[in-house]
């Protein structure tokens, strides 16, 4: 395919009839679109539009800000990718964040209260409890989907309600205070090796997950199970186990994001993460993760989430009301899905 591309590139650069040239340029664009998907085009458009609207947009300071703000969504989107790869999705990622935050903050505050001199132990206990709670939601999702064959839609929707209910019940709807200040200072606002902590932890996690997905048998199996469950099963893969692991892993990663967000807010909140299911699915779909399962790359998902962060930041700079911003995110999601359909059609026409 690349040979043909080069070929058309070369011929396009020769002086020819303008009409012919236009056609060639179209063909090249078509191939780029098929190979890369809609994301690079959207990114280009977004950067061009927002840098025209606001001169601050392209400043290093602002871009760094975008990366830091987006790191939570990036983690959740990567988590979501695991569910999507296996052909399902997880609507409970928001709840996982809320429950992680509430449980983590409560445990941390309690142990800090009991032994005020052991700050680090309190942080460790709190983080562990929070992440465990979030992962448990993921594990229950996994059990339902794999063992009992509940559709991912119903299972994760049901668990979203269960988790949210528990989080509200535990806190009575009020924020949880009393965590050591060090927690927020280090993991919310601090830096590790000169990089903002949430960004540092995200990078670390993404590198590990990148290796898991691309270089281990387990990673392969996610794609195989999502691509053709029956074929995977007959190749000797325990598909139920793979489904279970996918949802549990999704819960785990979302829970880490939940703990980081808690550090940033300095309180445990039951009301955070409500927009996460939609935004994370949008980031994945924009990044070319197939809703039918079996297709998707982690680095693209990171870019997809960054893109959404970029758009939100740009809209903030352009003083677009936050209510209207949700409209834009929804529209972008639908555009991405339509573009994906168009891409499949264009791909078919090129193969003919």
């Amino acid at each position, binding site marked *: 395919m690349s040979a043909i591309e080069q070929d058309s590139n070369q011929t396009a650069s020769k002086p020819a009839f303008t009409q012919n040239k236009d056609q060639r340029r179209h063909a090249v664009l078509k191939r780029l679109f098929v190979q890369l998907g809609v994301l690079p085009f959207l990114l280009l458009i977004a950067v061009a539009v927002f840098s025209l609207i606001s001169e601050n947009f392209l400043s290093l300071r602002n871009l760094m800000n975008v990366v830091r703000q987006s790191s939570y969504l990036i983690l959740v989107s990567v988590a979501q990718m695991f569910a999507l790869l296996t052909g399902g999705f997880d609507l409970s990622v928001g709840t996982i964040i809320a429950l992680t935050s509430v449980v983590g903050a409560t445990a941390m505050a309690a142990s800090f209260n009991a032994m005020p001199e052991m700050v680090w132990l309190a942080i460790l206990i709190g983080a562990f409890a929070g992440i465990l709670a979030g992962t448990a939601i993921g594990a229950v999702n996994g059990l339902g989907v794999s063992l009992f064959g509940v559709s991912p839609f119903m299972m994760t929707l049901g668990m979203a309600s269960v988790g949210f209910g528990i989080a509200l019940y535990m806190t009575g709807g009020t924020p949880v205070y009393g965590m050591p200040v060090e927690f927020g200072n280090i993991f919310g606002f601090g830096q590790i090796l000169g990089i903002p902590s949430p960004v540092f932890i995200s990078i670390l996690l993404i590198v590990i997950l990148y290796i898991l997905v691309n270089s281990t*048998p387990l990673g392969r*199996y996610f794609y*195989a199970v999502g*691509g*053709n469950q029956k*074929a995977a099963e*007959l*190749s*000797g893969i325990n598909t139920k186990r793979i489904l279970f692991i996918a949802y549990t892993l999704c819960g785990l990663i979302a829970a880490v994001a939940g703990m980081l967000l808690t550090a940033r807010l300095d309180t445990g909140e039951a009301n955070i993460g409500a927009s996460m299911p939609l935004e994370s699915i949008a980031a994945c779909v924009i990044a070319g993760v197939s809703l039918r399962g*079996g297709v998707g790359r982690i680095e693209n998902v990171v870019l997809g989430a960054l893109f959404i962060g970029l758009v939100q930041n740009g809209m903030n700079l352009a003083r677009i009301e936050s209510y209207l911003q949700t409209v834009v995110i929804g529209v972008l999601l639908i555009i991405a899905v339509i573009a994906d359909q168009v891409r499949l059609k264009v791909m078919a026409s090129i193969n003919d």
Partner: protein
Amino acid sequence: MQHSTQKSLPPEKTGEAIPLLEFESVSKRFPGVLALDQVDFEIVPGEVHILFGENGAGKSTLISIMAGVHQPTSGVIKKSGSPITLNSVHHARSLGISAVFQEFSLVDQLTVEQNLFLGAEHQQSLFLNKSTQRSEAKRILSELGFSLNPKQKVSFLSRAEQQMVEIAKAFRSKLSVLILDEPTASLTDKETNQLFSLIEQVKRNGVGVVYITHRMAEIKKIGDRITVLRDGKYIKTVKAKTTSEKELVELMTGRVIDQVYPKIKFNPQQTLLNVKNITTTNHRVSDLSFYVRKGEVVGFAGLVGSGKSAALRACFGIEKIQSGDIYFNDENVTGHSVRQMLDKGFFYNVPDRHKEGLVMIRNCRENIVLPSLDQNENLNLGVLINKTKEKRTVISLAEKFELHPMKVNRQVEHFSGGNQQKVLLAKCLTRDVKLYVFDEPTVGVDVGTRVEIYKFIANLCEQGAAVVIVSSDLAEIIHLTNRVYVMHRGKLQGEFKDDEINENTILSQFFDREAA
């Protein structure tokens, strides 16, 4: 049948009448396959025209074009003498051409009468006219002699009853051509007789019936003319009454095969797989015993649904076993999982590469090594995949099978059928396998690739492996095996060795004979 086409058609019931439907050199090309190659066919009023041929001969494609499901790539279709195009199933039905396929088109959650009039509801301005619909449904069902309750939900009906609904659907409007695809496969003898008297009745009303069957007894009983297809080509149209069973089988299978099949040197050694009286929970296989030795190729023949495939699937751990024992290498492996059987050295190559064989959206490389990622030490590097060795393994396998084009990182779905089949076969060479089972190894595969696949199978056997071929392609069974089991309705019908293996001995065990 007052609502049939009695008036508009000439009363003669022989071949001289104007054909209801006429195909002139109709071809149909699917991606990678020429399913129909310039086929001629005609159906005249008041005849039962049998379509006869092996699986993959093009019968199904022909009737799906007749019914408007597919559109021909080239050729002319004439209805009562004038050329037409059949755009859709709906369009074909409006012209009186109705098909009853093996796969039903019923909505399980709806009732019999709702299904009957689906897409052609009786209306009174904007609303459904339920009372005329009810009485109309009752009238159709009683005329057909089907004792069905119109208010019953389809999901509660047996397969035979669902088929009745499907047939009744064809009678809801003016009928001129009725297409039946192996309609008796799931009917009892009584229901079959009912169907036959129904066919007699519609014949008298000038309807033409296109009928697909493998059963000789049925051909003799209701057939007027028989058109034989082979490899998508029209072979011959003969009169049913004057053609012998033997002639028909010759027409069906007669192909030039001498160069295609390799000569295999069999060298049977100790028994590897020993199956004793197994019955599966779904009763696709009942009380079956057989064995497979190293160094031989054992064939499993029989009609679709005879249990030949289910027998091996049961051994591989896909079908649940109710009773009986399976021994592999003298070890009782009854009820083992697929994973366990693979680890023991049993590899089952699936018949349907789309449905359960390959992950079509992933590339060749990933598909080929999928069964052996955590088994083959060569592919592992601690917990990681050894990508260099993976690439080397895959490329050497791709070269062995002459994958074309030689692009192992290309998605499997972008390859032709034959090359997809090569990828599927390559999967079993990545691990240590003692028993290879090939279920329909050459479905939708061109002759050239077929030759390569046969050579590959011959090699495996000569190197001492045990091989089983499950196939609906009789020629394949006859030329590649030294022992053949013929299955019929889940039971073993016959076993043949060496010189006993030929078309006549095997085919004689294929069909139901009780009705003849």
